[in-house]
């Protein structure tokens, strides 16, 4: 069955693989004739894989910022190099990417990853290695408990804030009974958790709670049950394509309730998928998507305008909120680098105490207990009318 020829072949193949691994790193490039040593920033985004609609804009934004900063002469004369790794949304790859960036490329800090799951996979490692991580993912578990996340920050708004914003909105419209439906993934389940914590404190009762799978196509069974209750509003929590489907089904069933979505649908894709059923939907969103309706006096006006202008100029299309998270992460890191240099400990405590940092997602006020730094005021309430976003609050 097995000749010795096969055994030796196997040995050679094994040796070959070892050599492949040793050689796999790109040979180090020629030393640049730069005056000062470059600042190396690591970035892990889900550029490929199912979440590329989130990761690609983040990567594009990173490239945009790198170009821009270097055009202006770098940070205190040091050119900036952003080393972007793609984890394709897989935890194992995220871990390997993080190790490569920290151990091989010796980056100052890491921006990303894109997703909550992949972020959680490297949180322990970054803490252990004392390397700052600024995640572009939303889960609260990334930055809490604070004592075990000293080196971890995140830039996206928390779903808690979105929920608080929705609660304030509903309260003003005298809504006291809601139905809740969410996707059974990290984003959706976290939303449900927040809903259960936040809504009752504002006197809003969740009369029914339903879920659906991320690939489910038909939510009429759940909506049928919801229709049979006396809820005044339906809150749907998820990211595309499910919530669009829910709106279509809701319209088909002629659901007569206020239709509220999460900030996960703050993109054109939602309107495209839901078609007519998107009209009338209300959701909280960062001010980026309603830039044309933000008054000049708003503190975010400048940054939002700058980001949109630069992005449209380079890529020919409008930026989205996910790219915005990367913008915030990199600019806050660049701010830290310009003030304290490359000492990781100093960068960490600088960011931790940074107040009134204006980003695309909101105005950040970091603190040792709050490594996210945002509040419900980071959100505006937006309504979709005739396929366009209209700010209503």
């Amino acid at each position, binding site marked *: 069955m097995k000749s010795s020829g096969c055994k030796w072949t196997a040995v050679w193949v094994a040796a070959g693989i070892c050599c492949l691994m040793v050689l796999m790193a790109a040979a180090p490039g020629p030393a640049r004739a730069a005056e000062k040593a470059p600042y190396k920033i690591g970035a892990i985004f889900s550029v490929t894989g199912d979440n590329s609609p989130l990761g690609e804009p983040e990567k594009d934004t990173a490239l945009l910022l790198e170009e821009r900063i270097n055009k202006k002469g770098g940070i205190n004369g040091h050119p900036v190099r952003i080393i972007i790794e793609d984890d394709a949304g897989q935890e194992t790859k995220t871990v390997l990417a993080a190790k490569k960036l920290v151990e091989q490329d010796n980056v100052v800090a890491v921006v990303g990853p894109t997703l909550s799951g992949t972020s959680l996979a490297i949180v322990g490692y970054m803490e252990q290695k004392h390397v700052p991580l600024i995640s572009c993912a939303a889960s609260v578990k990334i930055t809490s408990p604070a004592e075990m996340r000293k080196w971890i920050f995140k830039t996206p708004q928390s779903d808690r804030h979105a929920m608080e914003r929705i609660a304030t909105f509903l309260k003003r419209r005298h809504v006291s009974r809601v139905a809740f439906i969410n996707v059974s993934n990290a984003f959706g389940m976290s939303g449900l958790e927040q809903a259960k914590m936040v809504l009752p404190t504002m006197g809003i009762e969740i009369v029914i709670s339903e879920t659906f799978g991320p690939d489910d196509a038909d939510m*009429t*069974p759940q909506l*049928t049950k919801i229709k049979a209750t006396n809820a005044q509003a339906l809150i749907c929590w998820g990211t*595309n394509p499910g919530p669009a489907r829910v709106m279509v089904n809701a319209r088909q069933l002629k659901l007569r309730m206020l239709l509220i979505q999460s900030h996960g649908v703050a993109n054109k894709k939602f309107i495209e998928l839901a078609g007519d059923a998107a009209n009338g939907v209300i959701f909280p969103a960062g001010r980026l998507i309603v830039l044309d309706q933000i008054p000049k006096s708003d503190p975010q006006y400048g940054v939002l305008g700058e980001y949109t202008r630069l992005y449209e100029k380079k890529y020919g299309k409008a930026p989205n909120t996910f790219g915005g998270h990367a913008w915030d992460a990199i600019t806050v890191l660049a701010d830290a680098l310009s003030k304290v240099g490359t000492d990781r400990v100093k960068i960490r405590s600088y960011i931790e105490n940074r107040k009134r940092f204006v980003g695309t997602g909101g105005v950040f006020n970091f603190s040792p207990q709050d490594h996210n730094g945002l509040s419900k005021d980071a959100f505006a309430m937006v309504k979709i009318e005739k396929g366009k976003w209209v700010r209503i609050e």
Partner: protein
Amino acid sequence: MTLWSQTLQFVISGLSIGAVYALIALGFSIIYNATGIVNFAQGEFVMLGALAAISLLGAAHLPLPLAFLCSVVVVTVVAALVERIALRRLRTAGVLVLIIATVGVSMVLRGGAMLVWGKDHVAMRPFSAPETLNLGGVTILTQSLWVIAITLVVMVGLQLFYTHAQVGKAMRATAINREGAALMGISPDAMVFWSFALSGALGATAGILIAPIHMAAYNMGTMLGLKGFCAAIVGGLGSSVGGIAGGLALGVLEALGVGFAPAGCSGYRDAFAFGVLLLVLFIRPTGILGVRANRGT
């Protein structure tokens, strides 16, 4: 909404997705009968049908019936090519290798679709307006009616094919007894070819029918294929009637399960199909209607 009308609502939405499962199950059974292998790329035929139709409707602005037809033809050709190029050379290898080969084919088709159509979901308008009908408190999607109607037409067409067309009669003979049919001069290679072509056509039909309800994307084939496969096993792999019955039963059970499950358990929807699969495999593996004697090499 009364309990009765709720149940009816669930059953109707279950029947329409069940019809799609039935079409996919048929595809599995046809290939199984001719080759003895399970074609794990079946779901990708469904996906290609849906995406091709959407492209033809959108980019080429073809009217719906023409887009439908063209899409089915395209996928039929793809299926035939798959058989010719990838699987023909492996005919002598074991069943195991063939099964793995079909997995490889599904990866190629899926990867190819991703490169052509990207990763976004695309929507397709339902075949006709109005979108819904209201009958006594129960809302029925008109698309569901289209799905059921066209599936019935396809079934009738298949029956006619099996009883009147030369190729159809040959396929039926092969399904009953492969060696006997070969002795009568029916080429097994030709049968394999035609079985793939036919499965491709059925898969594409299923995809186009479900696209207005389901939203199409490059990865929609995996889960649909697996569920169609469950339906085929439940009904009895190799049995046409079994596939249809299995598909409809699965669809309805799924909808009822989601409908009446306690709140927060709806995420287990997909687990239903696989739970039923395991149950059937443990209790009556030949399926409810029994598998044909033809079991492969």
